């Protein structure tokens, strides 16, 4: 009878055998390549498959999208489209005043821009605050700590469409919230028909759905901070608030920076759960940039892929700038920290 360990060793041999065979075949050409090109070239050689996939699936679509943004017409096949230069960009920027979407030719684009800006400012600040507070609490010696961690992480596992549907069932006219309010003697209220409540709901729901992921990153950062730093601070009589500002926050900064960048990118791209929850309404009060791009490029009758592509290029440019600013701030913070 074969033992368990013997079986595992057998399995390992089956898995590694092909690798040995491949490496055996590649060994001689790789050595020759290294002799000719040096070791520096080897890195490029091994990066090539990855770069190829990245190029085909990321860079190439980016350039194709850029090409689309320079074309007009309703056809989808690029060679069938007419070259219009920067006309689509000019149309997006054709405004008397950028702060008044009503004065723009593409008024829904600017409505979406300002809605997205408001969403990003509020959602990113609240998301970081809530995730940080949750991570700090979950880092303490709580009873059933693993259970609470799972509870906060659970919504991350749900599809955004499911998240949108769950909250729609809660907030709609005959939803759970109104059922509860009615039971308590209050008049039901149509939350999703109210501009302010609908906007707040999109922020709240997106925080609920994704905070678990960011909490997890911050929790990992908190657990990497050596405990003896806090013990030493406690012996010196440092108060917990001061320990937070002087020890926790500076040492958590690399994780926080990652979280800020990720939250920011995700907030600018918000679409799926909001599309299901409010459909961009009431009116256009929760119409965000990604929905505008989707509607213009795909859902509208006689769609305009060129205009949608131009709007998506602008959105991408804003994201790149924001990310660079974040990284720049992070690096300058690190340098300052180093001087101290």
């Amino acid at each position, binding site marked *: 009878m074969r033992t368990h360990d013997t079986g595992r060793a057998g399995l390992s041999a089956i898995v590694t055998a092909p690798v040995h065979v491949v490496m055996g075949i590649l060994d001689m050409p790789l050595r020759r390549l290294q002799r000719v090109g040096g070791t520096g070239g080897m890195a490029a050689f091994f990066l090539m498959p990855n770069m190829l996939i990245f190029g085909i699936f990321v860079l190439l679509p980016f350039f194709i999208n850029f090409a689309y943004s320079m074309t007009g017409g309703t056809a989808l096949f690029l060679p069938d489209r007419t070259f219009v230069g920067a006309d689509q960009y000019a149309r997006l920027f054709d405004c008397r005043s950028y702060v008044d979407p009503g004065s723009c030719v593409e008024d829904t684009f600017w409505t979406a821009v300002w809605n997205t800006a408001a969403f990003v400012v509020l959602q990113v600040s609240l998301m970081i605050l809530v995730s940080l507070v949750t991570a700090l609490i979950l880092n303490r010696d709580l009873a059933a700590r693993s259970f609470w961690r799972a509870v906060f992480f659970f919504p991350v596992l749900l599809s955004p469409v499911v998240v949108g549907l769950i909250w729609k069932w809660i907030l709609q006219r005959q939803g759970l919230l109104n059922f509860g309010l009615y039971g308590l003697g209050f008049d039901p209220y149509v939350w*999703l028909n109210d501009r302010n409540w609908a906007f707040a709901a999109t922020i709240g729901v997106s925080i609920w759905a994704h905070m678990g992921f960011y909490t997890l990153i911050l929790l990992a950062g908190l657990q990497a901070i050596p405990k003896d730093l806090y013990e030493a601070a406690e012996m010196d009589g440092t108060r917990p608030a001061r320990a937070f500002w002087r020890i926790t926050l500076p040492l958590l900064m690399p994780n926080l920076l990652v979280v800020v960048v990720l939250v920011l990118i995700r907030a600018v791209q918000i679409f799926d759960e909001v599309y299901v929850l*409010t459909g961009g*309404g009431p009116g256009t009060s*929760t119409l965000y940039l990604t929905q505008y791009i989707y509607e213009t490029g*795909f859902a509208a*009758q006689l769609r*305009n892929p060129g205009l949608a592509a131009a709007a998506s290029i602008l959105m991408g440019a804003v994201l790149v700038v924001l990310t660079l600013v974040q990284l720049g701030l992070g690096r300058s913070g690190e340098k300052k920290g180093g001087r101290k």
Partner: protein
Amino acid sequence: MKKTRTMLAALAVGLLASTSALAGDVRIMWYSDGVEGEVLKDLLDRFMKENPGINVILDNVAYSVVREQLPVQLEAGAGPDIARVTNLKAQSQHWLDLRPLVADPAYWDENFGAQADWMRPDGSNQISGFMTQITLTGGFANKTLFDQAGVAIPGKDATWDDWAKAAKQVAESQQVPFAMALDRSGHRLTGPILSYGGNYVGADGKPAPLDQGAKDFLTKFVGWIEDGTMGKDVWVSAAGSTYRAAADDFINGQLVYYYSGSWQVPNFSTKIGSNFDWVATGSPCGPANCTGMPGGAGLVAIKYTKNPKEVAKVMDYLAREDIVKEFSERTLFLPAHKGLLAKGLDFKTDDAQAKAALNTFVSATGSLSELAQKLPGWFWSDTFYGALVTRVSQAAAGEMPVDEAFTRIDADIAAKVKDSGL
């Protein structure tokens, strides 16, 4: 080792089969308003037994998939082999000409010729497919609520104002949230607009700016949403041209008067059952006429199919008089088949309300305006509908005055015409 190879081979075949059409495969993209998906599956199972060499795959999808994703697939030269669509004219360049492929083109011309132009490129004699049902927009009233409120249901020639007044009275009396609702759809808005004398078609055949008739009804409509006569949830709840129906509110007894169309009859018959009494009321009248909007879904062959002969065979089968008869009688849809309409149908339902509703819609076809009959075959209809929905919603949500909405509708449509290069 042999077992592993067999499994890998099976996996490879499975993957290939899941991603590409095999010879003899015919894939149909289908959406359902009621039970018609089940009926079609039944009919196709019989077809496959009779034609073992043809494998018909029925993809049941949401209407929004047909509306939003199919056009993109078609533009990319892909998609299913057959699809059930409502946006027939504007996409007609993607339909396959079945004339050289079907067994008897004269049968198609004779029985489906009246609507053939709705789904063919202008100026051609192409056979693209056939209408699975002819629909007509019209109203439904919750009779039980009217009876309980002691309010008489407005008569045949009642105006939109009469219905608004009566429905509001019933809603207030019976404490239901919605007096009236009209689907969030440009097609649905168009019936009443035409009854107010509106006309979308310019002298050159291209879209004209909104005229006084259209403005009059739209002003009234937005006013009804603002004062709560018309349900706010349907029109204010989404941005863009997203479709929203109020059928569930009517089915749940939350709505007194619902303006939708004949395709709701089987849905109501199945879902309302004996919960309350309801009646179809035809289209209310405006100053110009009492027209509804005709339409329907067409089953069309897609020209990018790799199996055109098999597609034609499936289409010939589904367009056969006995099959159309069975499909219509079991789904409670009005067929487009001329011969069948002349012979009459025996709808398979014990629901007297559904039968009466279907008869109401049949008699309402007599009051259709000339323009209403022209619009399903007009290239720019959907462009007009999309702009109407987007801007009227914004006005209804209080984002812009109704006059500005009119200006925006005209500008949106003009931009679309310019973008199209036509």
